[in-house]
């Protein structure tokens, strides 16, 4: 029996391979020819005869009986012969005649291999004992296909390839009719009836169109239809009022019938979602939203072959970072702490490994990310610039499957395990880095003891209990550790849990209850021979509870409303001596606590077919809580030791200070044409926690600080206006969007501020305002062998810190460019598929060089020369550009292969452009030396092997 199946597979795989037909490789053609040469029946041989009496005998038994009697080996799949039964009497009849009778009325054909004494049963199809005409190519490309058919009156065999199917694989391919050598035609009749899946009633006025043609049939009042289809593979596009638009694939072997059982339109099927998504760009009311699918991003070459949705995000307009190797993203001129990054509804404070070079998310468990940089959905808040809503996949509920990859720096593994068939599943992902070898392999003894490693793991449970209830839960942990000197170890970690219960109360109202807990921390362990060993820690932890509802009031009003509340607990820094003889004093800065809450209600109003308005109001509330102490300072004076008025102590749970206010979320969409719209939006927001950093770029040991008596929340206002157009059935998307943004009370720091383990950090903090504006152009090609996008952004990001007192002023109180202000930013992401298996990708990025603070003079002090710096960010480093290339090879598509493989060979920074990242002016031996750093100054090749099973 195993041989039997193998044989089937060979046929199957040949059929698949041959779908490449004209473009096929020579080698395969030879195989193919060899195969068919082997099956040519020998003429003139006496047929074997058999006898038998069958009365209501199952087809399987009949076949097995014939196998015994005839001496032929039969090859078939058990499924094919499981259902039919046979009543027949034959007496010394030739085997082919018996088979004709036995298989009559079944979709089965047979083929006799006389030499091997084998009979192969085939479902629907027949074995062609000669190659289709022009199999090896045509001499002229202008031959009319129909004429060709006419001559032969035989259509070419249907080679159906699982991977060229055009629709989602929701429905099995329908095979209609039974091929009959004597009745091969170029088209066959299909008839059938359409039923409503829920009610069982027939559907009238259902339009059934053959995709890509104008051939159409409409069901009559009895739901009947009749349609002539070309032989072979066809896609039917099915539409009717109240019925979910759908597509069905059929293979026509001969005339036959097919009944269509269709879902109602309200229960959105996946296909419908896909349709809707395609036009989402134009039809949504939301401005400034982007979507990245983790799987789809696999072709984009990134550094060291690591798939990374956050890096891909940087190629979208309005999203950037200070440079390669800069942690954190800057969205529309906002600071890196103004992004709300969520992993399955819970905040992830640092979603990046290794100084931002890699994402801290397993690419195989990550479904994708929705990015909101303009109008942020009502349920989110607490950050000024953007929301990155990262979703983990729901596990496979059918069978165990997995994906794994091996790259030069990391290894990834993800498993999807069904727990309860068709209902619940578990996703397990783990990922580790082995960067140590890079350090070890260097010919530098001082690095032999250095280490760098990271790890992340995720566990997701998903249970779709019934149509009205769905439960998800996620647990995630990531950790980075690095050290160079053997006496100090730096580490940071993220931990989060979230659980979500989606519930449908009735057809109109559904809800989601979300609980999340996130923690971020870092530490430094210093263990030297001196008596200054210490262990230093920082943590922030938050717990969120959110309940949101959506009610479809009527056709015009869709209400969104809910409540969310968060509790923060921050350990702003602690240091403890380690080892017996350490003289370090233990120091614990007071814990900070706070409560953040929001109430929100919004309505999506469909005023007309063309005008969609989304109005929302969110009330944000924040209370800094005791216990703890806070200083008060004299009004109107800089906050420093000499202006302290009082120190107030708060008991546990006492309210230190409250902040809050209403946030508006308004967006409007007007459809000028079905594929052309304009949108406008306005929103404002509050942010109650801030990162403290005296670096020009983010470092993993920056701390988060809650607003308190002396540090007010940041506020932001953004207005945007855009025009969106889709072309060619949503194949192309074009959008042009402009925005203007104001920010109040953004934080900065006095030059050289000491922020860590500082009990009175407010004395180092400056609060000022910012403005950002820009225009973003995005052209996307979503489908086809050649796809990708081109984005161009012109934007500015300016900040101002002004005060009567010079110690609180930066650049004389004028607006200055932020560290990530890069006016011109062009990204081109392309992928060209030149066959099913091979594709080539290229990225190109160009950005204006980022601003830096540059020397404007030199001075001599303490017998050495030093540089005097300009006003902040008065100069720019040279422009940045980079080209990456990737070559992707999909493994072959043999169905029963153990694993499906995918190999990416990529070269990052092909041009070897030495893009400066920053400049330093170092005093060495009393002399000033100018140094510049770059992260990836030469082309970096890598090869990554992925496989699915």
């Amino acid at each position, binding site marked *: 029996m195993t041989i039997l199946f193998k044989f089937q597979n060979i046929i199957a795989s040949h059929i698949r391979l041959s779908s490449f037909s004209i473009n096929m490789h020579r080698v395969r053609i030879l195989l193919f020819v060899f195969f068919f040469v082997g099956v040519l029946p020998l003429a003139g041989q006496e047929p074997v005869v058999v006898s038998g009496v069958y009365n209501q005998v199952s087809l399987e038994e009949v076949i097995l009986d014939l196998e015994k009697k005839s001496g032929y080996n039969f090859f078939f799949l058990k499924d094919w012969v499981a259902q039919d039964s046979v009543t027949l009497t034959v007496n010394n009849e030739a085997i082919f005649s018996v088979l004709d009778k036995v298989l009559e009325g079944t979709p089965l054909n047979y083929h006799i291999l006389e030499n091997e004494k084998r009979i192969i049963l085939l479902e629907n199809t027949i074995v062609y004992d000669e190659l289709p005409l022009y199999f090896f190519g045509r001499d002229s490309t202008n031959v009319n296909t129909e004429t060709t058919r006419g001559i032969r009156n035989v259509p070419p065999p249907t080679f159906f390839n699982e991977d060229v199917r055009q629709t989602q694989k929701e429905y099995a391919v329908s095979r209609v009719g039974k091929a009959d050598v004597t009745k091969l035609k170029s088209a066959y009749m299909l008839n059938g009836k359409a039923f409503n899946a829920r009610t069982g009633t027939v559907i009238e006025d259902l339009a059934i169109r053959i995709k890509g043609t104008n051939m159409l049939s409409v069901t009559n009042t009895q739901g009947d239809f009749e349609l002539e289809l070309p032989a072979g593979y066809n896609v039917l596009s099915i539409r009717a009022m109240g019925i979910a638009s759908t597509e069905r694939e059929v293979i026509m072997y001969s005339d036959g019938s097919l009944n269509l059982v269709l879902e109602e339109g309200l229960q959105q099927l996946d296909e419908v979602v896909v349709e809707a998504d395609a036009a989402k760009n134009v039809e949504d009311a939301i401005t400034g939203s982007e979507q990245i699918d983790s799987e789809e991003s696999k072709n984009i070459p990134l550094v060291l072959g690591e798939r990374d949705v956050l890096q891909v995000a940087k190629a979208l307009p309005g999203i950037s970072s200070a440079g390669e*190797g800069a942690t954190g993203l800057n969205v529309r001129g906002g600071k890196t702490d103004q992004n709300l990054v969520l992993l399955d509804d819970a905040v992830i404070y640092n979603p990046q490994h290794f100084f931002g070079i890699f994402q801290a998310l397993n690419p195989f468990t990550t479904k994708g990310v929705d990015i909101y940089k303009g109008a942020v959905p009502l349920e989110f808040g607490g950050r000024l610039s953007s929301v990155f809503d990262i979703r983990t996949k729901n596990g496979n509920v059918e069978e165990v499957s997995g994906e794994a990859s091996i790259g030069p720096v990391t290894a990834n593994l993800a498993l999807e395990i069904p727990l309860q068939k068709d209902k619940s599943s578990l996703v397990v992902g783990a990922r580790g880095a082995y960067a140590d070898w890079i350090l070890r392999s260097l010919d530098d003894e001082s690095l032999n003891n250095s280490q760098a490693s990271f790890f992340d793991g995720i566990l997701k449970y998903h249970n779709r209990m019934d149509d009205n209830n769905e439960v998800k839960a996620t647990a995630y942990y990531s950790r980075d550790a690095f*050290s160079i000197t053997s006496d100090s170890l730096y580490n940071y970690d993220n931990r989060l849990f979230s659980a979500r219960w989606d519930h449908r109360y009735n057809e109109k109202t559904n809800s989601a209850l979300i609980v999340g807990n996130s923690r971020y921390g870092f530490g430094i362990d210093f263990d030297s021979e001196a008596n200054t060993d210490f262990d230093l820690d920082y943590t922030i932890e938050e717990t969120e509870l959110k309940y949101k509802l959506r009610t479809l009031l009527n056709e015009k009003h869709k209400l969104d409303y809910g409540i969310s509340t968060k509790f923060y607990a921050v350990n702003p820094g602690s240091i403890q001596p380690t080892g017996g003889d350490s003289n370090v004093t233990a120091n614990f800065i007071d814990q900070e606590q706070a409560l953040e809450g929001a109430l929100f209600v919004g309505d999506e109003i469909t005023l007309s077919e063309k005008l969609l308005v989304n109005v929302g109001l969110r009330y944000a509330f924040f209370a800094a809580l005791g216990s703890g102490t806070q200083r008060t300072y004299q009004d109107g004076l800089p906050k420093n030791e000499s202006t302290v008025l009082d120190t107030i102590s708060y008991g546990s749970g006492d309210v230190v200070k409250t902040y809050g206010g209403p946030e508006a979320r308004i967006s409007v969409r007007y459809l000028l044409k079905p594929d052309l719209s304009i949108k406008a939006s306005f929103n404002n927001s509050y942010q109650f926690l801030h990162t403290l950093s005296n670096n020009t770029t983010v470092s993993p040991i920056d701390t988060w600080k809650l607003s308190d008596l002396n540090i007010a929340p940041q506020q932001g206002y953004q207005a945007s206006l855009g025009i969106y157009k889709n072309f060619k059935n949503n194949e192309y998307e074009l959008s042009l969007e402009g925005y203007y943004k104001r920010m109040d009370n953004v934080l900065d720091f006095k030059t050289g501020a000491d922020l860590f383990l500082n009990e009175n950090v407010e004395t180092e903090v400056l609060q000022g305002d910012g403005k950002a504006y820009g225009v973003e152009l995005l052209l996307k090609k979503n489908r086809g062998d050649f796809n990708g996008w081109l984005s161009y952004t012109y934007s500015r990001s300016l900040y101002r810190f002004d005060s009567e007192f010079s110690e609180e002023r930066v650049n004389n109180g004028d607006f200055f460019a932020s560290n990530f202000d890069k006016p011109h930013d062009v990204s081109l992401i392309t992928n060209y598929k030149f066959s099913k298996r091979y594709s080539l990708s290229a990225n190109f990025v160009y950005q204006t060089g980022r601003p830096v603070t540059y020397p404007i003079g030199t001075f001599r002090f303490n017998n050495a020369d030093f540089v005097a710096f300009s006003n902040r960010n008065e100069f720019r480093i040279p422009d940045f550009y980079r080209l990456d290339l990737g070559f992707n090879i999909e493994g072959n598509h043999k169905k029963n292969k153990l694993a499906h493989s995918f190999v990416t060979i990529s070269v990052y920074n092909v041009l070897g452009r030495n893009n400066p990242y920053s400049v330093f002016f170092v005093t060495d031996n009393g002399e000033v030396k100018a140094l510049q750093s770059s992260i990836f100054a030469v082309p970096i090749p890598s090869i990554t092997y992925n496989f699915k099973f």
Partner: protein
Amino acid sequence: MQIKTRPNIVIWIFAGSICFGLSACIEEFEAENITDALAGALVVDARISDQNREHTIFLSRTFSLEAFEPLPEKGAQVGISDELGNRIDFLEITPGAYSTNGAITLEQDKMYTLEVLTIDGVRYTSNEASLPGKVEVKDLRAERRVNGFEKEGIAILVDNEDTSNRPNYFRYEYEETYKIVAPYVNPFDWDEIDYDINDGDGWEVTIASRDELVNVCYGNNKSNDIILASTAVLDANNLDDFEVRFLGSENYAISHRYSILVKQYHHDINAASFFGLLEDFSSIEGIFSNVQTGRLEGNIAVQNSDMAIVFGYFELSSYSEKRIFFEYEDFFPNEPLPPYLTNCATGAPPLYPEGFHITPVPEGGEFIIDGTAGSPLIDGILTGLYAYHADNEDYEEYILREGLGGAAPFFVKPLGCVDCRVFGSIIVPKFWTEE
């Protein structure tokens, strides 16, 4: 309470190394156009300690990076006053250097202010400062250690003693002196050098006995980086085992006998933060994170001008110092010495270059050398490259066989291998003791 967590350095080295593996990460570049946009702002370098001695304040102007030397600020009136108005004047001794008239002693518990009036009429004054309390260096010692980079060597460690209950801030400088022993002792040295081709006997080099041996010298080295320490995060307010200097085991300075004088300046928190920032702004930082640089505010302000800018600091400190000596054998008994300061390969530079040829001058009597080649041997001696090592026994035979061109009369060593004065002085420092 503040602590210097110093992640930047570590991150840099780490990242730097990644980059060296994959690409070049930090490299020097030619900084262009760093001309002095400050148009010569005043720079005040006023570091005064409680030592009873003459003190000097340096005044200069900011300058362009291309220029090598700052312009000294001449003709200024410089003085420090206490709160009672008593003033100590600093008089210009050399351009830009203003010194007290003989030794002075500042008093504890008094507040002092620095005043500078430049010749253009701009007045600068510092914030009030006072001498911090006396903290003595209690112990200075050397210890064989492996440092954080797993490098073996000698750590110079400081302990100091303070009984006050306030955190202390220190700045260190050091001067190290070490014995150098040239590996090739030679009683002979070059004597006459005849570099005249027309004096009848051509070029000639002779040797003669040395008057004194030059194989033992004393090298000297001063710290040129900013070394800061604080007790802010420590239980006690004294330092214990603070590493002022680390000498790798391959550092020649520790080969024989080594001495280090550690100078401790005890200053206040404001001075500590100024020097700390100066260090941060002028040292290599993280590849992935760099400190936001900006205007470095000192404690000196312009009083009567909107245009003038001033850099610098008026630092008052209490001073303490200590010196130690040690021998290589104390820490590395029977272990090979670190490599000598220079490679001591033997060479044989010819007196006449390869292919040497002279032509008589038509007017008669003299010769001119074809080409411009000089004598490799004489040129090397005159530029201080070669020391005499030995005679070349094959010299005569070579000339007979091959001619003058390329013939080397002597074997030579790099000068420093014989004469250690290249690296130090043969004068024994006054403080030097053996045992």
